Structure formats: structure tokens, C-alpha cells
């Protein structure tokens, strides 16, 4: 069907751009491969969990870094960023993960200003990739609703 093809093409193009821009990496592809008949909603489940978890982490980070210089609990910051790094890399959110890496240098150096900067950056990147992924899912739903199959990227 034309509409299905169109949607599918749209989907492929969109996803390719995400890879190209570095928002997603190969890991996301791996996750998609894990989705099959026995696990039809796997990607969506994982990504949803990622969103929930990330909101929490970002919230905790904001709290941890909202105190003055002397009272910053860098351990807590470390724990949050570490987890964020792990989950984002598991999802394939490459840019988010990279920010986490530089975030680490900031809190290792106990650089509050640097940490706040990194926090903002990681937030930006996170919301960006979240947005993109939600768009991607919407496209998928449309394709399925139109009776088509979601194209699998090689």
C-alpha cells in the first residue's frame, strides 16, 4: 500500500538520521533485533523503562547539585551519572552516554560549575533523544495501524 510504504520509508529515513547524527548507536539496533514474536514489544518496553529511570536520575542529580559547593554529595552524583551512563549505553543513546563520560571528569574534580554544565547538557541530550524515540514509536504505530510491518534495519 502506498501509505504503508510511505510510512515505512519515512521510518527508515528517520531512524537512519538518528544513527547518522550519533543520537543512537549500534546498541539500539541490537535491541531491535531482540524484538521478535515472543517479545513483540521489547524495544518499547526497554525504552519506556529508560525514560522513567532517567527522569528519576535527572531529578536526583538536580537535587544533588542544587546545594552549595561545600555540601555537594559527589558520591551521589557519581552514582546517578554512573547509572545514567549504564542505562543510556544499554539503550544506545550515544550522545547521552558521552556526556556522562565527561560528566564524570567534572565530579571527579569536584567541579560544581562543570557539573552543572554537564547536567544541563545531559538533560538537553536526553530530552532530544527522548523526543526522537517517541517520534519513532509513533511512526511505528502508524505503520502497524496501516497494516504494514516495521522495517528492520540491517
Amino acid at each position: 500500500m502506498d501509505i504503508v510504504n510511505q510510512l515505512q520509508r519515512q521510518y527508515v529515513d528517520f531512524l537512519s538520521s538518528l544513527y547518522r547524527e550519533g543520537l543512537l548507536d549500534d546498541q539500539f539496533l541490537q535491541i531491535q533485533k531482540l524484538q521478535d514474536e515472543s517479545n513483540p514489544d521489547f524495544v518499547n518496553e526497554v525504552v519506556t523503562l529508560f525514560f522513567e529511570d532517567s527522569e528519576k536520575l535527572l531529578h536526583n542529580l538536580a537535587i544533588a547539585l542544587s546545594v552549595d559547593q561545600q555540601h555537594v554529595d559527589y558520591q551521589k552524583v557519581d552514582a546517578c551519572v554512573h547509572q545514567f551512563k549504564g542505562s543510556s549505553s544499554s539503550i544506545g543513546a550515544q550522545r547521552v552516554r558521552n556526556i556522562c563520560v565527561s560528566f564524570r571528569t567534572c565530579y571527579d574534580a569536584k567541579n560544581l560549575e562543570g557539573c552543572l554544565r554537564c547536567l544541563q547538557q545531559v538533560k538537553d541530550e536526553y530530552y532530544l533523544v527522548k523526543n526522537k524515540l517517541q517520534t519513532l514509536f509513533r511512526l511505528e504505530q502508524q505503520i502497524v495501524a496501516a497494516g504494514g510491518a516495521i522495517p528492520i534495519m540491517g
Partner: protein
Amino acid sequence: MTVEETRASSGNDFDDFPKGMRVLAVDDDPTCLKLLEGLLRKCQYHVTLANQARIALNMLRENRNRFDLIISDVHMPDMDGFKLLELVGLEMDLPVIMLSANSDPKLVMKGITHGACDYLVKPVRVEELRNIWQHVVRKKVDPKSRDKSNSSYDRDQQGSEGGQGPAVTGNVDQDGKSSRKRKDDEEEDEENDQDDVDPSAQKKPRVVWSIELHRKFVAAVNQLGLEKAVPKRILDLMNVDGLTRENVASHLQKYRLYLKRISTAASQQANMVAALGGKDASYLRMGSLDGYGDYRTLTGSGRLPGTGLSSYAPSGMLGRLNSPAGVSLRGLASPTIIQPNLAQSLSNPAFGKFQTIGSQAHQNPNFFQGIPSSLELDQFQQTKSTTQVGDFSAIDSHRSFSAATNSFADTRAAVNSSNLLGTGPSNPLLLQGNTQQIQNGLGFVNQSSVNVPSLTSDSFNVGTSGSSNIMDDGRGQEWPFQVSKFSSNPLPLNEPFNTAQMPPNSMIYNSSSSSIHIQNSPMQFPSNSTISAPIEDSRGEHQGGLVGNFVQNVNQLPNQRFRQHKQDYTNNSNNAFSALSTLSNSNGGTTPFSQTVDQDNGGYNRRVNGSVSSIMQHGETEKSPMNMKMRSTDGYILDQTKSHGGLVPNNYDSLDDIMNAVMKRVQTF
């Protein structure tokens, strides 16, 4: 043993291994956990998820054979992944793969030293997981590759188990036997012969040295005169069917060591009592700290699968036990070791002594302060234990169970010395000493006497509890297994505690052990939480006797608090744990905790675990100041002394109860 056999024996219904391999995945990050699930399912493994280490431990303790492999994240709020690694290795001897977003070589090294089979870096790819089954096969097929101290243990396992994983309780008895005889060639031969004769047999007849049997033995020995007591004649005098000269010979050896230890202990005790007179806590502390420091050096890397201990405890049992002990000794080692002793004490005529010790214990409620003395004791004990270790292994579960009482006494001493309560640092050292004693088995009597001084200390109580639990645990076949496990696991201490209380605990052996550790953990459990846990649990439950008493006493305060304010507890526990500062986690943890607490699972352990876990999460300092402090940080331990002091008296009173409980268990078992 082929893979199929192994799998079959392990309860796996799948014939096309590695498909259907049962994996337990532990990760607090829900995203990663979900991903892991997907990946593992893709490999066609059977997956179970746990988002908390505590939950995972509970599951494992409930049934060691439920899983073939564990994959665990390193960074977890409620428990350090490495600790879980240690515990699993010690208690269950299952392959553990570490997982982390951090690829720092130092962490990888830490994983290795703690005994991880592999270390994967997130994000994990499906290809990496396709090969992890090799670790399962490797463990089952080649247990001897494990450290030498475990070798005899493993050997036994292989021979007797016929395909069961090393952790199988069935092997426990056998392993206990073989491990025991480390030093003793004769014993070893005996064991070996037995093993060789029927290598594929699932069960080898094990002589359980029940109290009656032991009494007969002692009567025979006394009749003949210790110098003249030879196995053949003892056997004739005892006139028991099914008892072989070899059984008697090994038991006699242990008994001799035990007597030696008692006499030595008696003299030491005198010294200790004198030393304790002034209650020089500070002095003691110092002493213990030093000991601890030394111990640490000893233990070195996280896991010393028996290598560390092997020097002391030649017995195979120690192999596995030892290693954890080594590790645990850092914080908890003693608990495991104590177990063996306990078992022995039970069966020993020292039983009477045990009681005596108890009374002494009462007298000196503040023994805890005297921990430094215990340190001395430990040294003493250590020597003793080495010899005895071999004996211990000879003790079958039954015996161990009974002996546990003895070891209980020792444990107590050991515990005290180990500074479970406050001396933290010293504890590891002490624990070791104690552990050895326990292992020696023969030391039971001695242990009791030795322990007397330490009984008074709070830590002592903790230890005893642990030991008592051990006994219980050992009741079943598991006991021998446990014993060994204990040495390695800090937890074991805790376990005995739990198991003793509940007969069903034997099943939970694993879990209880873990719970025990946790509870007693101050010594053993590096993760602070363990210590507090027991206390809490004891509240609710009336543990068998040993455990119950101990637990109750110890945990009274915490329990109450816990029950009423679980939330608070968890929050508090944060402090205790020191490490755990995640409130969010603690909240989460509370749930499991409450669950466990509320549940009246067969195992006390569960509860303990629950409480423990909660403790762990929340690092509640109040509850088990002793425990928690002990484990989490060296510094903590010092603080605990206070709380222990009060507890001590309680425990001792229950000694008789404990003994009774143990006895009952033995009989029921």
C-alpha cells in the same frame, strides 16, 4: 561427569544445554535489567530477574540449585556487587559474572579477585552472552581447578555428588568429610577410599556423630584411657553397627585435638579473664584493630578460596569455607568457621562445658569490651583450629550439628574476639581464629571454655548465634556444606543463627545462612546489613533456641524499631551502612524487608534476610549497632560494643535453650 548429567542432576530439564540454562540476573537499573532479560532470552536461557541484591540472595539461599549462573551488576545501592559475588561464591559456589558500565581495569581485577568468572562491560551484546554457559560447565566439570583448599572438597563433591554442583547440599556431607581430613592422611585415605569406591554414587553413608554416639565414644575412650584408646578397641567397646574403625579413628583424632584445645583454652581463658578484669575497652579495641589489620593483610584479595585459610584449615571443607573466611574474615570470616565448632560442640560432651560457658558469659555481659582479649583467644584458637580443621570435616552433618553447640561456644569466643560488635577490624582476625577452631571440630569443648570470657561480650553473642545457627544448618546434609560455606562466607554465622531456629531452615539453609551472615555479619558480613538483620529477625521469631535467643536479644531493639517503623529503619540503616545513602533505594529496600519480615517463611533466614536487606539498605545503625557497624566499616564496629554488651547476657541464658534447640534439631533432622 558430562554436561548432561550435570544438568540433569542440577534439575535442569533441558537436554540441549546451554539452552535453558537458568540465569539469575541482578541489576538495580531497570533499563539494563530489561535489556539483559531480552538478551538472555535471545540466547534461549531461562531468565530470572532481581533488581536488588538482597532479593537475589534470598532466592539463591532458598534454593541453590535453582540457578546455574548469576549475572550481577557491580554498582547496586543495596549491596555492592562484589559482595554479592563473594557471598554467592562462598555459599552457593555458583558461577557469577560481573557486569558494569565501568570498564576500569581496577574493577575488573577486583572482580577477578572476588572470584567472578567473567566481567562484562555494558552495554552487553548478545554475542558475549552466548558463551557464558562455559562458566557453568567449567565449574561443574572441573571443580578441582578451584583453589587447593577446596580441592578435597571438590573431589568429594565430584565423587559423591555425581553431577551435582559443588554447592549441592548432598555433597555437603561428603565434602565436609573430605574437607575435614585435609591434614590427616589417614582420614584422607578413608575419605578417598570411600569416594573412590563409589565415585558416582550420589550418597555415601555418612556417619553422623550424634550425641549418643559421641557419648558412647567418649565413654569408651575414658574406659580405655585416652592414651590407650585405639580405634579398634573403641569400636569394639562402642558396639555400634555400621560404624567402621575408620570412622572411629577420624573421630578420635578430632576428639584428641579438641581435648588439647580445651586444655589450652582453659589456660588462655584464665589469662583472658584476668585481662578482662579491668574492662579496658580501649585497650581491647586497639588489640582487635591490630588483629584486624593483620587479618586484612592475610585476606588480601577479596576472595581467598581457601588459600588463605588453607594454611590453617587443611580440611577440604575449609577450602570453600576458607576462602570466604579469608574474605569474610575481613569482616566476617569468623562466622563460617564458627560453625564447625558449633556443630562439634553439640555432639561433644563439652556440651556441659558449653553450658558452663554460657553461665560465664552471663557473668560478663560486657565482655565485648574485652574483645582484645578475644583477640588473644583468636590466636590461640587459630592454632587450635588448624589442627582441628581436619577433624571438622570428618564430622558429618549430624555431628556438625551437635558440634555446633561447641563451636557455638567457640564461636562466641571467636566472635567476641572478632569484635563483631565494635572491634570490627579485629574481628576479621578473630574470626579466623575462631573459624579454625570450628573447623577443627574437636575444639568444641575447648572452644566453649575459651569462649567463656568472650561470651560476655556482645559480639560474642552474635558469634554464638551465628554458630548455633550453623549447627542447625548443619543438621541436614547441608550442614557440612554450610560449614564449609561459612568459613568462606561471612554470612554463615548468620545462618546458623537462623537455621537453628527453624527446622525448615535446613531447606533454607542457603538462605538462612545468608541471613545469618547478615545478622551476625558484623563480623562476617562486610555489608553491614547482615548484622543488623539477625537482630531484627530474632525479634519476630523465636528462633530455634540458639538463634532465637541470640537474635532476640540482639535484635530486640532493632526489631521493635523495625516493626514499627520499617521505613524509619531503613532510613536509619542508611547510616549504619554508611555506604548506602540512597534514600530511594532504602525505600525500595524497605519493601523487601517488610516482606520478608512479614512473611513467615520457612526460613528464619528469610526474615533475617529481609531485615538484613532492609538493614543493608538503610544502614540502620541503631538496630544492630553491633552488626552493622562491624561490617560496614571498621569504624562502625567500635561503636557497636555498646549494644552488644546488653545483648550478651541474653544470649547466654539461652545457651541452654540453644543447646536444646540444637539437640532437637539434630534429632528431628
